[in-house]
């Protein structure tokens, strides 16, 4: 049966190459890796109190003070937004 042959070939090569995910065996043409030292999120300091968001207006209340527009690397992506914000980006001279 053809399927049987396909399976035999595939598993046979897996066994022959001894591949189980050693870093050295990874194929080289990929790959951007992900941060090796992500900061710990769980702290016991009240770390926010010193930040801007600990100002006098509580964060909840200044929700409607302004509406920010996306203004980051999205500007670098061609055709990266739908019409409404395309217009805005055009005005900014994108």
């Amino acid at each position, binding site marked *: 049966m053809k399927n049987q042959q396909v399976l035999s070939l595939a598993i046979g090569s897996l066994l022959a190459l001894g591949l189980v995910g050693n870093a050295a065996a990874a194929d080289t043409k990929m790959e951007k890796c992900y941060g090796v030292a992500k900061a*710990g999120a769980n*702290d016991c300091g009240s770390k926010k109190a010193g930040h801007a968001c600990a100002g006098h207006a509580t964060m909840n209340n200044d929700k409607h003070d302004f509406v920010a527009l996306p203004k980051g690397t999205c500007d670098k992506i061609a055709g990266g937004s739908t019409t409404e914000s395309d217009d805005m980006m055009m005005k900014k001279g994108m």
Partner: protein
Amino acid sequence: MYPPATSVLPCSAGIGLRAPHYREVLGTLPKLGWVEAHSENFFGGGAPLHTLLAVRQHYAVSLHGVGMGLASPDPLNEDHLAALKQLCDVVQPARVSEHLCWNTVNGDVINDLLPFPHTHAALAHVASRIDHVQAVLGRQLLVENLSSYLSFTSSEMSEGEFLAELVRRTGCGILFDVENLYVNVRNLGVDEDEFIRAIPAHAVGEYHLAGFSVRDGCLVDTHDHPVYDAVWTLYEKVLRHIGPRPTLIEWDGNIPALPVLMAEADKAQQRMEACCVL
């Protein structure tokens, strides 16, 4: 009763180990008395756990939990406890500590260290949970006094009395955070001498020191400054009454270069040694 630890913290000054310093610490192996890490940041596997295990090969480690919520009204989260147990099994820390606080009610979690009324009912509740945590971990837990921005008018005893009674009922130890006491003195009018007197010296296994911020007259426990002189003075008083213990410099915001942290630890070390000489 549980043995205090499988390995011991040296009676010297250590630092809170945070991500920005992993590489430097592992690369240069600086002279640190010991290090403390926040338990929850190492639940699971992968890079965080492997880094901590590498650190553990060179330094005594204290695991400091921020999420158990010993005083939460909701049932204790057994998955959380199991994750801590698993972490302790692989890391074999010298000490395991949690805060005297709560974080969960009706399933809502507030990822912070929240105060509660020090009532007799709360005491029975927290004591039974500490019993359970110690039974599952098979070891003594150190319980840390909290820094608070409000106090509950329904409290029936002081935090010092509450901690002392927990020690008597459960055999837990105390992590005495000197800066937290100072914050409570200033924010809530806590009597520092009453607190120090209430704490059974034999139960104190560790001290913490840190810097705070001030906002609208409220001292906020931000761990983002050097230890202030007033806190050093209080630490010296605590050393005289209770004696030297492993002491940690905690720094969690605007984390400085490693030598700055180590210099802070040196200051604690000098005060400990001066206290021993006296």
